[in-house]
């Protein structure tokens, strides 16, 4: 009988430290499946962030580098520059990417660094216990926004749409947003990530896939409710789909140069 489904080679067969219902596990698995499908496990370096995914190096059976909070795009920049034939994936959460590491993320994107960022947006700080993130929705409660995010009276700012912000930069070539709320969206997400990683190996330029992901623990919900909350609140604000796709025209331009 033909084997149609199994454990990805790039995924270490251990139980993760992620909470029940967390989206990180699905995202990690999708990435591993694609690395395997591309045959690049032994030619991959993943930078893992500070936050819940700091333990990603326990799960990815590839080389990994763990830099300081928010600085993963800077480290990934250098790794990809030194190892241009390797697949370099910068795995980041919303606090790491959109708060403390904003400068590194924006400038790596603007330079058109040829690595791929997987941006896990669960609208909250997970590892530190549920503080407000740059992507926390207006009215959403957090330990540092106990009455809900209030951009007006409390001056807490507005949720940031990172992809739309980055889409104005010429160095960005592929930006897409997916979600892990249901199998259909997981399949779409896998398509986006595959497209981004293939674009990276074609030398196209900066690529990022944002993933809307549930955090039942810090949202204070069970898994089912957290999925519903993501669908009812996050997806309307963070629109799913490809925000920017200049892969083919960039490839054509690169071909013309050659």
């Amino acid at each position, binding site marked *: 009988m033909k084997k149609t489904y199994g454990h990805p080679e790039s995924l270490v067969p251990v139980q993760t430290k992620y909470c029940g219902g967390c989206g990180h596990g699905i995202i990690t698995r999708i990435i591993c499946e694609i690395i395997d499908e591309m045959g690049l496990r032994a*030619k991959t370096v993943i930078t893992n962030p500070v936050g819940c995914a700091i333990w990603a190096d326990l799960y990815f059976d590839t080389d990994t*580098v763990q830099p300081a909070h928010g600085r993963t795009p800077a*480290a990934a920049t250098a*790794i990809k*520059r*030194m*190892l241009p034939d390797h697949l370099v994936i910068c795995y980041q959460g919303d606090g790491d990417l959109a708060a403390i590491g904003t400068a*590194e993320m924006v400038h790596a994107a603007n330079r058109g660094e040829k690595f791929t960022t997987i941006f896990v947006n669960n609208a909250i700080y997970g590892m530190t216990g549920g503080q407000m993130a740059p992507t926390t929705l207006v009215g959403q409660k957090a330990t540092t926004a106990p009455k809900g995010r209030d951009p007006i009276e409390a001056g807490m700012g507005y949720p940031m749409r990172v992809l739309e912000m980055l889409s104005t930069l010429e160095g960005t070539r592929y930006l897409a947003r997916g979600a892990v709320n249901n199998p259909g969206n997981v399949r779409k997400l896998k398509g986006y990530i595959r497209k981004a990683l293939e674009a990276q190996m074609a030398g196209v330029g900066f690529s990022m896939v944002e993933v809307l992901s549930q955090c039942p623990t810090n949202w204070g919900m069970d898994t089912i409710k957290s999925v519903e909350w993501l669908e009812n609140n996050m997806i309307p604000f963070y629109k799913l789909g490809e925000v920017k796709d200049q892969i083919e025209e960039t490839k054509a331009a690169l071909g013309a140069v050659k």
Partner: protein
Amino acid sequence: MKGNEAIAEAAIRAGCTAYFGYPITPQNEIIAYMADHMLEMDRVFIQAESEVAAINMVYGAAATGVRAMTSSSSPGISLKQEGISYCCGADLPFVYVNIVRGGPGLGSIAPAQGDYMQSTRGGGHGDYRVIVLAPANVQECADLTYLAFDLADKWRMPVLILGDGVIGTMMEGVSLPPMRDLATLPDKSDWAVGGMYKTGRAARHITSINLVPAQLEQKVFSRFDRYAKMAAEEVRFEDVQCDDADLVIVAYGTSARVALGAVHEARSMGLKVGLLRLISLYPFPEKKLEALANAGKKFLVVEMSMGQMREDVRLAIHDKVEVSLIPHAGGVVPTEEEVFEKAKKILGGKI
């Protein structure tokens, strides 16, 4: 050649294939020189968006096993400290340059040595040390930078080239070290990331995290064992007529250049003054200083900081004798006359 340019050229010749910098005075010649030469040699040069980004690019590059460097001046070096700590926690070797300016804060752009404690104690959070080398002329800017890359790889730790605005921007003749063939650089394939496909080895994880206190303690202990071995081998200083001296001036870098002039003047007047010019600030020449103290010497520390190095001299000689001090701050350089007069006073005032 300027000191800053000699540092940059020596780094290139030492096999530095990755440089990451951010503009700040008075080290801008380094980043400009690297921009001018690294790209045409197909090496990596990036003007980073900040000092913070630059040091984390160093972290990434060093993790792949290449020789990497960054440079800055005092306020920028403060910003890099987090990344330096991470590099030490992950045992990543690299070279960084601090062309020190007057502080604290934005301070001045004039030469200073106020970063002594920050440099010799590690500088960032946690228990770690870095090797600190202090050139006093343009030749040493080249020689010590060249050496720094070898020491970093040998001891698998960062090496800091500590200069100041005088050392970095003055021009002197320099004889440059040979261009290293990159194929002859130390092999780091036993720990660096990348190239797993070549041998099929197991996956590697470069990280500084370890949440088990007993394990982390053992890592720090073993690192300090390594530092102790390094310290036994890598002490560097220049002894100028200390043997028969009644008074030994202790100084490094620009202060030592000034002090040397005062020593010559004192000797011409018949005063027995010597100079112990420190080249490595960490490791510190404790044994040499203790031997001089046991031989009955008096001490005068000349530094462009407020007695920071004097504390190390006092520790090294266990306060057996008083250690006099000429401190300066804010970018003020001592004068030969000032040092000579102080030496004369310590020795009884009579010639």
